[in-house]
């Protein structure tokens, strides 16, 4: 692979990141570092995927990332939405994960009890 090809991949993926297949509007990212996993992030991730599948939400991407250092708030889930501030949730249990999908992802109302940060 050459430099030019690398640039092309970069540009192409940049567009895709939010609009994978041109459809996604919201991205839900679960922190899956050691602390996150220890606090139950796998279950959280499974629940999010399950909820999204159950509701047949085609415009939602559920993804995973490393952790951010909020050890005492794990599992941590961040919700990225184009044109809106990023909302970070802490202590996301299975129940809260369902709530995030129902209230935030579907209806656009952040679950205020578990918000630990809002990033612009």
């Amino acid at each position, binding site marked *: *692979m*050459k*430099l030019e090809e*690398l*640039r092309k*991949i*970069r540009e192409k*993926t*940049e567009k*895709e*990141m939010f609009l994978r297949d041109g459809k996604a509007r919201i991205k839900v*990212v679960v*922190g899956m*570092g*050691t602390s996150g*996993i220890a606090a139950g992030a796998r279950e959280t991730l499974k629940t999010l995927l399950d909820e999204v599948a159950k509701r047949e939400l085609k415009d939602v991407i559920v*993804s*995973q*990332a*490393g*952790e*951010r*250092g*909020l*050890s*005492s*708030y794990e599992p*941590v889930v*961040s919700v*990225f939405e184009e044109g*809106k*501030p990023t*909302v*970070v949730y*802490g202590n996301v249990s299975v*129940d809260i994960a*369902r*709530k995030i999908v*129902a*209230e935030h992802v579907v*209806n656009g*109302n*952040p679950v*205020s*009890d*578990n*918000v*630990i*940060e*809002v990033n*612009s």
Partner: protein
Amino acid sequence: MSIYRTHILVPVDEGTVQAGVFEVKRKLEQAILQKGLEKEVKVVESGTVGIQDKGVILVVYPERIYYTNVRPGDVTLIVDEHLLKGHIPPGIKHRTLDIQAGMKSLHNTGLTRQQKRVVLDKSWKIAPDNIREVLAAGGYSALEKIFGEKITPEAIIDTVKKSGLRGRGGAGFPTGIKWEATRNAVGDQKYIICNADEGEPGTFKDRLILEGDPHKLIEAMVIAGYAIGATKGFVYIRGEYGLSIERMQKAMDQAREFSLLGANILETGFSFDLEIKKGAGAYICGDETALIESLEGKRGNPRVKPPYPVTNGLWQKPTAVNNVETLANIPQIITQGSEWFHTMGTEMCPGTKVFTILGHIESPGLIEVEMGTPLREIIFSYGGGISGGKKFKAALLGGASGVFLSEKLLDVHMDLESLKENKAVLGSGAVLVMNEEASIPDMLFSILKFYAHESCGQCAPCRVGTHQLLQLAWNVREGKGQVEDIDTMMSLAELMWRSSLCPLGQSVITPVKSAIENFRDEFVLAVSHNQVS
């Protein structure tokens, strides 16, 4: 699980408390119960929403309507009209809250305060096992810049030197100078090693980089290899870091697939490859010469310095050993320039530092802030203060080879120079906080136990000294000692500092001296108290 249709936030701060927020809250809860709305409406006490001098405030979600100057008498009206009937009662002042301003203040915890993220900028956003996403987020753009603009190795070293980047593993040696020395050293083969052994108790910063953004490390090591003229690199990862090893391995495979690692990188003619070596759990292998011995397949005994690894490193070839956090700074220094790096931190110590905050603290975790941030801010603002409303007693900076600081030094700035002036060290960036109930002799005893266990036994001062110190510390703790034992501990630690072969034995003095100097009364009390009883 119940889902409330409405949340009412009751911001509690100095202003609203004076205006009688608790009275309003009680009325509100009563009214909600009366109307049977308790399953639909939830009242939440929150932090300030940043609206000043407007009396008691109520914010209603999801509408984001807020009422100002709410008096107990208004509550029934709000509940009847707004919560029950769904329209805003006339005659009561209200506005719509800006979502960002509102949310920001809701549950703002210490750890999420404004930070300066350089090495951990992407770790929580991107999928580490998806190289495309990494690329889209700007990964490997430093490498692209170097090869695209045909930047020479000398120019890279110059940029790193000018940036003033210093080793983040604890010693703070200038990275550019290390690279230059390795480049200038004579040898047919050179190596770059990433020290990811992270054995310092209380430190987990490297783990977050390895788990969250392993590609950043690969990029940095390719750049380092190119700069010093190495074609081979090793990542020495602590064996316990299963997830780090797994993610790093996967990232390396992907990078090879994308021609970002391996032979003929991006068809530029430059070849560089990486290999992972799992550590076996010895603290001493965090020392670069012991790490090199271990990499060579031998027992991890430290070497006598000089010669230094930059000339006689791995298999006696010139080798640069850099810490994970140090390397993670490199890509951004290349893309944004050395001047940008100087906009953060102090003059002698530019850039950021990752701190791990733990112990008796409200919100333990990790932060990345500018070098020179006061310790008080780290503990009380980011860490949220001491847990359980207790008082601060001491902080241990930099893990087992760290320094005990008393309250007197809470305002010290966390950069290498300021700490040195105060006889302290930055070390790995671990900040272990102890409350008023913690016993310093106890703490020192466990540190010495750790040292006695980890001493490799190669040189007598350390092998014998650590065990002698442990015995003395035990005596003091158990009240079987004399006051003189405290002084013996000091002189023994100093003797070890003067005569030990490697940093392990040499660094015992740091915790011993700082504990005894700053908390001598406690040691004396431990000895005498137990003798009386």
